[in-house]
């Protein structure tokens, strides 16, 4: 019978939490994110992550960059975005620099940017696996470091946040005139 074939509800597994000071902020954020097409749900944060109110919005953690940007654009206040699992830290804290002679490669977490030392032109972007990375590759390559779009402004995912960190480091290195 057709009415028995109702599709089984798919369990949402987000992996990330947006934390708030007050309950109305959490409810507003849920509305803003849902209206933009994000899959989210209101949940109680675990005690170790509780920073303000006892209501949080669970998100797909991978979408952190786009969600942060949307909440800021809509003036929706939040405290922080955290992975649900305690003891986890963002890998972008690990930055490595490789000197290729005429070029420098900066790796932040799982993302790498390589630029030409003399002119500060981005010649390659590598690493990552999220769908905004090939797009950011096309947007950044052949641009000057200081003229390239910022991954945090046009990307949507955790890979984009790592790429932003790599770009920040490239800008610092280039501005220092180090060029080594």
């Amino acid at each position, binding site marked *: 019978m057709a009415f028995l074939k109702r599709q089984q509800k*798919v*369990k*949402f*597994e987000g*992996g990330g939490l947006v934390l708030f000071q007050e309950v109305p902020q959490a409810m507003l954020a849920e509305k803003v994110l849902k209206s933009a*097409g994000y899959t989210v749900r209101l949940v109680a944060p675990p005690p170790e992550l509780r920073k303000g109110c006892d209501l949080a919005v669970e998100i*797909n*953690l*991978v*979408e952190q*960059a*786009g969600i942060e940007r949307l909440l800021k654009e809509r003036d929706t206040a939040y405290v922080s975005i955290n*992975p649900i*699992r305690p*003891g*986890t*830290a*963002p*890998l*972008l*804290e*690990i930055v490595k620099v*490789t000197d*290729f002679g*005429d*070029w420098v*490669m900066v790796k932040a*977490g*799982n993302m*790498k940017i*390589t630029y*030409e030392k003399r002119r500060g032109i981005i*010649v*390659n*972007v*590598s*690493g*990552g*696996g*999220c*769908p*905004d*990375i*090939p*797009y950011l*590759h*096309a947007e950044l*390559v052949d641009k000057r470091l200081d003229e390239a779009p910022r991954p945090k402004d046009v*990307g*949507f*995912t*955790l*890979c*984009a*946040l*790592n790429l932003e960190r790599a770009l920040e480091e490239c800008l610092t290195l280039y501005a220092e005139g180090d060029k080594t």
Partner: protein
Amino acid sequence: MMLIAGTVPIRDMPLSIGEVTAGEEVLFVNGESIPCTQGTGAMVSAALATTTYLGLDAPHTLLAGDVGEGTGSRELYQYLIDHIAEISPTVLALHYWLPEMSQTRQLCEAVKKCRRRPLMIADAASMYSAKGAGLAEEFDIFTPDATEIAFLADPDATHPAYIARHLFETDIAQAPELARVAYKNRGAAKLLLVKGATDYIIRDGEVLAMVTEPDVPPLEAIGGTGDAITGLVAALVYAEMEPYEAAVIAAKANRMAGKYARATPATRVKHIVDQFPAVFRDNLCQWSGVCFLEGGN
């Protein structure tokens, strides 16, 4: 049939399925032109170069435009969930998309309805979602890099950007130990090809082979070279090579292509892929022990 599924960085490109053909600078699928750049485009280009050389059918691709919002990714998942049983490819290679674990679970369930179980390969974020969903063992081959093998070793991580602090060491030399942990935690596919300064081919935590030559360090900087390796592996297993042998030859071929291209950090991946026919012509017979004539003739 070999089916490669993934997103491409073209905003609003509709879901498109079909056999891929090569143009001068781009790929064509159902009238859509796809750049041969980092991501699924590089993977498909490498697979097509290989099947063309071997005289095999061109890869079929299931592509959707997605610049990160996830809409195209969700369309890909749903199409595969709904149609994979009727398509029943020999090889199913999954690539860039927004990792979504519940849809990955549905896809793995749907794959069980195929006439014959396809050989399953995952790279990039499809590997993240497979591992995050606890389904790594359903896959035959993963192709992680040094950072991603640390992610596979972390039993609870769902993306390589957030992993346990004690796994932050992402030097490729740690790959065997991290792979051993990944297998213990059921976070690895049946075979791993870990891409890096040394390429490791690992099964059940045991290093079967290491590929170190030719040493072309700029390959790490070139966006898409890892994608190209995955495309090579997919095409070689489609040619009925054993996954282990396919992984070893893919690693060697990619390095040799870098050497032929005289790669610098500014080289584009298409220039690397363009070397594959010459690399195969000069080396495949010796590497594989099976000698093909170009084009399968």
